[in-house]
């Protein structure tokens, strides 16, 4: 990608088409079926949340979309092109920040640009990403000096610096304390609205899904298939005690098999 093209590029977004995807793992010799015929279409710029019982295979779906693994059967298309390998335009943020402990926050954030050899010409983007996640003061700090929330923000900065057209979030807030979690939920929505990327969030938290996403997809037990879908037509910022949100929450929990 030439410099001119990189500069001219406005924040893009990716449309996603998951077609009949099934996936199996080898587990001590036996085959474990994680996904079973998943069909999912996501429009460019959409924010979709994936909900489901733990261990059902949601994270596996994200790894497949990221291109870290290829599905046993079925296909995944990004803007109509099959996804075969990882690409910095589709970035996966993990549940753990997985920052490189041997690199400063700044170096961690710069990883994607450095790996593609464009760091020298685009160093400003690292500064911007640090400012965006309010980590400028910690640029020279090492990961062990950060709090859990700061580390996860740094992981977000490391993803956003690449200007991804698809952001895959694998329970990125799952291990944070509730206050930090609420603050970061708000930040995520802001970032998504400002940048316009397509977002796909795996979460256990029904409320989180309803506060962030335009559409909530509920998965079954393993092997996962799509059980139900809910549209959330509410303007942002949303409030957890909004009657519509509360009603949707009850509905989704019932779908998941919980009486409220």
């Amino acid at each position, binding site marked *: 990608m030439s410099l001119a093209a990189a500069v001219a590029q406005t924040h893009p977004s990716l449309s996603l088409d998951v077609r009949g995807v099934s996936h199996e793992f080898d587990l001590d010799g036996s085959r474990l079926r994680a996904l079973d015929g998943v069909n999912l279409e996501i429009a460019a710029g959409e924010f979709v949340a994936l909900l489901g019982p733990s261990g059902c295979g949601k994270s596996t779906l994200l790894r497949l979309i*990221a291109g*870290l693994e290829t599905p046993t059967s079925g296909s995944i298309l990004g803007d109509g092109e099959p996804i075969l390998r*990882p*690409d*910095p335009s*589709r*970035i*996966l943020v*993990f549940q*753990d920040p*997985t920052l*490189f*402990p*041997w*690199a400063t926050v700044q170096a961690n954030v710069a*990883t*994607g640009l*450095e*790996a*593609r050899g464009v760091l020298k010409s685009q160093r400003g983007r690292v500064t911007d990403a640090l400012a965006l996640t309010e980590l400028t003061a910690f640029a020279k700090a*090492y*990961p*062990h*000096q950060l709090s859990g929330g700061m580390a996860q923000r740094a992981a977000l900065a*490391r993803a956003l610096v*690449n200007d991804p057209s698809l952001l895959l979030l694998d329970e990125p807030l799952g291990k944070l304390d509730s206050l930090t979690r609420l603050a970061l939920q708000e930040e995520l929505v802001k970032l998504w609205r400002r940048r316009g990327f397509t977002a796909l969030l795996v979460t256990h938290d029904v409320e989180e899904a309803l506060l962030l996403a335009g559409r909530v997809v509920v998965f079954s037990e393993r092997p996962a298939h799509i059980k139900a879908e809910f549209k959330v037509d509410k303007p942002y910022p949303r409030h957890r005690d909004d009657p519509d949100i509360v009603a949707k929450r009850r509905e989704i929990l019932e779908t998941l098999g919980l009486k409220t």
Partner: protein
Amino acid sequence: MSDAIRTLDSRPAASGPASLVYIWRTSWKQGWIAALTWAAAGLVTVALPDVVHWGSGPLFAQIMVGAAIIFVILALSVHRLGRAGERIVHYGPWFIAIGVWLTLWELTTAKFGWLPKPFFSPPHGLLNVYVTDGPRLLICIGYTLRLWSLGFVSGVAVGYVLGIALGWSKSFAYWGMPILKLIGPVPATAWIPVTFYFFPTTFLASIFIVGLASGIPVAILTASGVGSINKAYYDVGHVLGASDWYLIRKIAVPGSLPHTFVGLFMGLYYSFAVLVVAEMLGAKFGLGWYIQFQTAYSGYANVYATLLIMALLCSGVVRLMFMVRDRLLVWQKGFIS
């Protein structure tokens, strides 16, 4: 403690005996005791006759008394020396113990002859070796450092590259790991006959032996270090568009560094241990050669004196390596403490 000094300074008008009491109270007590024990070692050396003549007794006594005078000065002034002073105070008990040790050592060897010549040597016997054979020892130090550094650096370089390759590449590990595990426990010295055959000069053969001793632990530990890196870091790298070469440089290398340093320290000790044997191979100079030569002639004082030099050299290099490690592994601080 520094408060006490200030109190002392603010009372310049205090009467004579009272200010002496102040000086005593505010001084470093262990410094006084250290001065006493070191002076005792010196006095014992000149006051009592040697059972057998060793030489350099008066010089040793002078050094001991000189050290005792320094301890007296430190006892009065150590609190004004800041951090260096704190370090000196920290090692106070050691200074006392060394003085006691030297005194007992003098008494049991040269003075009473309980530990007889030639198997044992008093401290001034060792000093006499440095005095009489100093130039030759200096040349030996130079030769040994040359052999050691050539062997260690080349061994570590090869071992490190091998270790990264073994940890990174499955097919490399398939063939390499069993071989490395097989030859790892073989003492480096067992290779001497083979090396004689393969290397054109004995000097190269010696370098190989030292290199082997330092390289194998570095290779094994670096390989295990690369293997122990969290796989999620590689996932992150892949997602961010990193090439394999980038993953090696930016994840495998820094991630395995803590293990590599363990290997380096092990290799350092092994390499010093094989130096003596490596210098058997037709060397004309070198500390190892000197030790063997003197052992053959029952020059045990010379042997001890040389061992002391080797110990100091080795601990000096260890210290240096610790400094490098602390520099490179600052990011680990949170994990260790």
